[in-house]
C-alpha cells in the first residue's frame, strides 16, 4: 500500500517531463547535423542543445526515476510508510531547483561544455552548482534508502530483506559512491576556476575523476531496469522468479565491480599508463557477469511462466508467452537491445578494438542502445505497472502501449545501427555539422539520414507514452488491489548475512576503487607543471 503516492507521482512526472523536452532536443540535433538540414548548421545552438540533452538525460531523468521508484519500492516491499518523507520532498526540490539552475546558463550559451564538462573548458559557475544540487538531492535519497532498510532489519531480525528493497539499496549505495568522482572534479577542481579564484586546472586529473563516475553512472541508470526484470516481470507474466539468490549475487556484483573500471573510458588518454588501463579492462570484462547471470535468470523465469501457461517444446514455449502484455513486450525488447548494446560494450572494453571506434559515432550508438534502449524502455514498463497504484484509476494500456513499445524498439534500432556503422567508418561524434560534399564523408550521408527517421519514430513513441499515462489520470477510479512483487520459486527463509546486507560489499567497493584509482590519482598529483590555463566558454580571446 502506497502512503506517499503524490511523492512518487511527482518524481515520475518531473522525470518524464524532463525526458520529453530532452528527447525533442536530441531529435533536433540528429536533424541539424544530417544532410537533410537545408540550412547551414549553427554550432552555438547545437552545442547548447547537446549540453542540455546530455545533462537532462544523464543527471536528472534517470535520477528522478530511481528516486521515485525507490520510494515506491520502500513502501510496497517493506509494507510500511516511508521514513523521512519530508526529507524526500526536500531531495526532490533540490533536484528540480538544481536542474533549472544548471540549464539556464546552458540555454544562454554560457556553459556549452557538454555534460562531460571537458575542463580546461570552463563554463558559467551556475551550471556546475546546479549539477551539484541535483547530486545532493539524490544523496538524500541514498541516505533515506539506507535508513529505511536498516530500521526494517532492526524491526525484523533474521528476516530476509525483500529482493526489491535489497536491489534498490544496492543501487542507492552504488550511486552514492560513484557520484563522488564527479563531485570531487566539480567541487575541488572546476568550481574554484569557474569562480575565478584559480586560473589553471589539471585536465588529465579531472578526466580521471570523471571516469570514476562516468561508467558506474550507467549501472545506476540500469538499476531500476534490473529491479523490474527481477521483481516485476515474472509476476506480470504470471510466473515466478527462477532464483532469488542469483538475483542478489548480480546486484552485489554491480556494487563491487562497476566502479573500479572507469579508466576504460581513458584508453586513448596520455595521462594514464598502460598498467592501470589493463587492470581496469579486466575488471570491465568482469562486470559483464552480472548481466549474463541476469539474462539466464530472466529467461528461465519467462520459461517457467510459459510452461505454467501450457507452453511446450524446447523453443515452442516462447510463443506461449503473453505477448499482448506490455511488461512482457518491454522486457523482451529491453533484453534484445541489451544484447546488441552489450556486445558493443564487450568490443569497447578492449583497448585494441576500442582504438578503431574510440570517440566515433559508434560510442554514441552504443550508449544510446543501452540507456535510451534497454534501460528507458523498462522505465516505461515500470510506469505502466505502477500507474494504477499511484493514481487509483484504471490504466488502459492495450494497443496504444503495444504500438508505443514497438515504435521505441524499432526507432532505437533505426537510430543506433547507422551510428555504429558510420562510427566504424571513422565519423567523429559531437560535431554540429559535417561537410557531406567532402568525398571522405559523402558515403555516410544516407546512414545519418536514416538516424533522423529513427529520431522521429522515438518522438512519436514518446507522444503515445504520454497519451497512455494522461488517459490513466482521467479514467474511472478502481481499486488496483494489493501490489505484489514477483515471488521466487524458492523464497528465501533465512539468508546468510552476505546476501542480506552490504557491510562486506561496501568495504570491497570502496577498497577496490581506492586501489584502482589511488595510483593514477597520486601519480598525477605528484607531477609538476601539468596544470593548464582554463579556457572560459564565451570569453573574448
Amino acid at each position, binding site marked *: 500500500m502506497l502512503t506517499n503516492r503524490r511523492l512518487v507521482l511527482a518524481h515520475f512526472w518531473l522525470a518524464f517531463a524532463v525526458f520529453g523536452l530532452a528527447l525533442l532536443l536530441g531529435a533536433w540535433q540528429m536533424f541539424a547535423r544530417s544532410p537533410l538540414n537545408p540550412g547551414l*548548421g549553427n*554550432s552555438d545552438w547545437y*552545442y547548447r542543445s547537446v549540453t542540455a540533452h546530455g545533462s537532462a538525460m544523464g543527471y536528472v531523468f534517470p535520477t528522478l526515476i530511481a528516486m521515485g521508484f525507490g520510494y515506491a519500492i520502500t513502501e510496497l516491499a517493506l509494507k510500511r510508510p516511508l521514513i523521512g518523507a519530508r526529507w524526500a520532498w526536500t531531495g526532490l526540490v533540490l533536484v528540480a531547483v538544481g536542474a533549472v539552475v544548471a540549464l539556464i546558463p546552458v540555454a544562454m550559451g554560457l556553459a556549452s561544455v*557538454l555534460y*562531460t564538462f*571537458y*575542463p*580546461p*573548458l570552463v563554463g558559467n559557475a551556475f551550471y556546475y552548482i546546479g549539477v551539484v544540487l541535483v547530486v545532493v538531492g539524490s544523496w538524500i535519497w541514498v541516505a533515506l534508502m539506507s535508513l529505511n532498510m536498516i530500521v526494517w532489519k532492526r524491526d525484523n531480525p533474521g528476516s530476509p530483506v525483500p529482493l526489491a528493497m535489497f536491489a534498490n539499496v544496492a543501487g542507492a549505495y552504488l550511486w552514492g559512491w560513484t557520484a563522488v568522482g564527479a563531485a570531487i572534479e566539480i567541487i575541488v577542481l572546476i568550481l574554484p576556476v569557474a569562480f575565478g579564484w584559480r586560473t589553471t586546472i589539471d*585536465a588529465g586529473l579531472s*578526466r580521471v575523476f570523471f571516469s570514476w563516475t562516468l561508467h558506474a553512472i550507467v549501472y545506476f541508470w540500469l538499476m531500476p531496469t534490473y529491479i523490474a526484470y527481477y521483481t516485476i516481470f515474472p509476476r506480470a507474466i504470471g510466473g515466478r522468479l*527462477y*532464483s532469488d539468490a542469483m538475483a542478489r549475487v548480480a546486484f552485489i556484483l554491480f556494487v563491487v565491480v562497476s566502479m573500479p573500471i572507469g579508466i576504460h573510458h*581513458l*584508453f*586513448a*588518454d*596520455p*595521462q*594514464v*599508463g*598502460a*598498467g592501470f*588501463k*589493463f587492470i581496469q*579492462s*579486466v575488471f570491465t*570484462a*568482469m562486470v*559483464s*557477469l552480472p548481466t*549474463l*547471470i541476469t539474462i*539466464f535468470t530472466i529467461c*528461465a523465469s519467462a520459461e517457467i511462466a510459459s510452461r505454467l501457461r501450457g507452453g511446450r517444446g524446447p523453443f515452442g514455449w516462447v510463443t506461449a508467452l503473453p505477448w499482448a502484455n506490455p511488461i512482457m513486450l518491454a522486457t523482451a525488447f529491453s533484453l534484445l537491445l541489451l544484447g546488441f548494446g552489450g556486445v558493443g560494450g564487450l568490443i569497447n*572494453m*578492449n*583497448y*585494441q578494438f*576500442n*582504438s*578503431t571506434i*574510440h*570517440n*566515433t559515432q559508434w560510442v554514441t550508438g552504443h550508449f544510446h542502445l543501452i540507456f535510451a534502449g534497454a534501460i528507458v524502455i523498462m522505465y516505461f514498463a515500470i510506469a505502466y505497472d505502477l500507474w494504477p497504484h499511484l493514481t487509483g484509476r484504471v490504466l488502459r494500456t492495450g494497443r496504444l502501449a503495444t504500438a508505443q513499445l514497438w515504435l521505441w524498439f524499432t526507432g532505437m534500432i533505426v537510430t543506433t545501427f547507422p551510428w555504429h556503422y558510420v562510427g566504424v567508418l*571513422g565519423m*567523429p561524434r*559531437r*560535431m554540429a555539422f559535417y561537410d557531406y560534399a*567532402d568525398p*571522405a564523408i559523402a558515403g555516410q550521408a544516407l546512414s545519418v539520414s536514416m538516424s533522423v527517421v529513427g529520431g522521429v519514430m522515438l518522438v512519436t513513441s514518446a507522444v503515445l507514452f504520454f497519451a497512455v499515462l494522461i488517459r490513466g489520470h482521467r479514467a474511472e477510479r478502481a481499486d488496483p488491489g494489493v501490489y505484489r512483487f514477483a515471488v521466487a520459486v524458492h523464497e528465501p527463509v533465512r539468508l546468510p548475512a552476505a546476501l542480506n546486507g552490504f557491510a562486506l560489499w561496501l568495504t570491497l567497493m570502496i577498497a577496490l576503487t581506492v586501489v584502482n584509482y589511488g595510483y593514477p590519482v597520486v601519480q*598525477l598529483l605528484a*607531477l609538476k*607543471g*601539468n*596544470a*593548464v*590555463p582554463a*579556457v572560459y*566558454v564565451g570569453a573574448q580571446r
Partner: protein
Amino acid sequence: MTSSVDHADHDQGAAVAARVERRWSIMSAGLVGLMIGVAIFAGVHRATMPQAWVETANPQTIHIAGEFVESNLGSAMEADGSVTVRAVGQQFSFTPQCLVVPADTPVTLRATSADVVHGLLITGTTVNTMLVPGYIAVLPMRFKTPGEHAMPCQEFCGLGHEGMWARVRVLDKAAFAQLAAKQRRLTCVD
C-alpha cells in the same frame, strides 16, 4: 500417485535447470576469459598497446621551446629508418594541417594540445588518441598502403569543433625518402 509423479517431474526439471545454469555460467566465464586473453595476446605482441608512461608538456611554453616549436612539427626521419611525426592541436585546427608519412614504415606519433582537450583519429586505420593539454600522446602507427586519409578532431573542443579536420597523406617509401632528403621536417600543407 499424481502428486508423486508431479514431484518427480519437478525434481527432474530442477535438475535440468541447474545443469543448464551451470553450463551458462561456464560459457559466461569462458567468454570473459577469452576476451581478456585476446587483449593480453595483442598487448604482449605489441600489435597494439597503450603508451606505458606519462609525459608532460606545458601548453603555455610549447611554442617557445622544446620539441613542439613550430619549426620542429611535421615528419622527421630518424637514424634507424623510422619516422617521428610531431603535431599540435589547438582550437580549431591541427599544426600541421596535413601530415605526410611513408607507407610500410614504423611511424611514431608525438602530439599534444595547446589549449583544451582535443583528440585525433585517422579514418580507415586504428590510429586514435586523445590530446590532453599538459600531456604528450605517443602512438606507434604503420600504414600499409599509400593513400589519403581524413584526420578529424574526435573530442568536443568548443564552438568550432566541427571544423577541425586535417589530412594524412601516405606516400610510398621511395617518394617519401626523396622528400626527406631535401627537408628536415615534412608536411603536405600546400
